[in-house]
């Protein structure tokens, strides 16, 4: 088996924590939103991750792994929240015509977003990192703290699930 060495996501960047947060804050919140699917939770997820990063900032900055660390913290926190809330009982839809019957026909992207918010956060994060951030699978593996093959599997399963849904509708 070949030696596996972690790849820093971002070797460069501001060395000062405040400068780094200022430059990366919006992007991190956007990432948190896409991973959690919640615009309300996104700022909190980022803030918690930054609080965790502050005590080890010098080490993270020196190694160029701050971005990966904070994103991983966001994903982990999102997973924790998802686990704690997924058992909540959802109310049944009111009887009557479905939204789909009344709304204009949804396009592929709408279907894709519906699928994404149903995925577990780790899998969703892999899709976000691949198709929104355009990261390689090696880079995704570093952030998600998993093997490259697992990162590939996350993305592949999402594509397969969406493909099956789309095949039920003409392109």
């Amino acid at each position: 088996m070949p030696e596996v060495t972690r790849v820093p996501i971002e070797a460069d960047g501001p060395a000062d924590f405040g400068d780094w947060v200022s430059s990366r804050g919006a992007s991190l919140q956007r990432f948190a939103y896409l991973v959690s699917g919640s615009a309300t939770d996104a700022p909190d997820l980022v803030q918690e991750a930054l609080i965790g990063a502050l005590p080890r900032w010098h080490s993270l900055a020196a190694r160029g792994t701050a971005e990966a660390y904070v994103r991983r913290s966001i994903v982990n926190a999102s997973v924790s929240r998802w686990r704690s809330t997924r058992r909540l009982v959802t109310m049944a839809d009111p009887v009557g015509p479905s939204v789909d019957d009344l709304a204009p026909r949804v396009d592929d992207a709408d279907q894709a977003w519906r699928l994404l918010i149903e995925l577990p956060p780790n899998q969703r994060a892999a899709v976000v990192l691949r198709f929104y951030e355009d990261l390689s699978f090696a880079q995704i593996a570093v952030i998600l703290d998993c093997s490259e093959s697992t990162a590939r599997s996350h993305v592949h399963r999402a594509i397969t699930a969406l493909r099956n849904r789309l095949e039920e509708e003409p392109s």
Partner: protein
Amino acid sequence: MTENDDRAERALREALSRQGDGFVPAETAVPTERSTRRWRSWGAVAAAFVLVAGTAIGIGLVTRDGGGLAGPDTGHAVSELPLPDAGWRYESYRDVVVQVPDSWGYGHELTSAWCLGDDGTSVNQTPFVGASNGYEVVPAIACGRRPGDVFGLGIEGPERLWVTNLSFGRPEDEEVPDGVHTQDGWTRIVSTVGHARFTVLTDQAHLADARRIVDSATVTALDQNGCDVSSPIQDGVYPRPVHAFDLSTIGSVGAMAICQYSPRTPVGEPGLIASRLLTGTDANAELGALHVAKIGGGPDTPSTCLHSEPPDTAIVLRLNPGAESRDVYVYYDSCVHNGFDDGTQVFELTEDDCARLWGERVVQWSGSSAPFELCHPDQS
């Protein structure tokens, strides 16, 4: 990839682009040390509550005539660190604490002299936290690594003796860069945080724990047992306690922190290398042993060493950590100045007052033979 896979990928990209670009981020506040402390303080509140409501570490000094130096035994958290996760505990080294599973014991990492007098039966069988703390006397013999060290992991000894473990070291002493290396089912993670370097060697079964250990590293000024990460005991050659008091007037204690330092680390830099906490009966048994120890210190054998050299390690015995504490300095590994010093008098080392100091990662790895035999009667 099929045409429908392409369609799915395009749809995912479009969906994320719409949602991501349409999201309006709030202003991101820059956390400060103060906000981090405030966040941690809730953990301290929780810790204090548990201590009061549960099996309280009744921390409070009571004078021998019944008067209280620190008031009633109300219980205090010895540290402001948040409680460790369920089933985990803290370990400290220099200015950093990490969490490790409670199930991990203590042991010694394999050294280049792993083959000396060892048939393998005394080697740890289960995951452990290394107790060499970056300081260990290693016989000048190289027993060898796995032939050719083909793992490239830099771990001593044959693979059959490898056991998942966490070890501590000083970044300035290590040539191994931070990173993760995996081969043939073994992973070595090296991480530097603050003034500490952590190395976890792990098999696949404990990989998740290993990563959690490294990710838990937190810089602190006071460790989980109430030990300062830097102490005046690091100042020069055998300093006496800054705040002198009379140990003989202390009737009982709630706890004692045993804080071990490297006096060869300059004052102001984190010199804490290990700590442990004595509570309840154990703490008061130690206090009782000190009460009957002879005044004058020792045992010393002045003709057998240089007097100008600081000891390799020294202990601050912190009575009542986390509240109105008192510090006793303990010297035990040289030929002079041995004993317990409260700043007023020096009490001699005896088997009863010294042997209780050692355990977990607080170890003595060098020293003059007279005090060593008293402090380690089981090894003499």
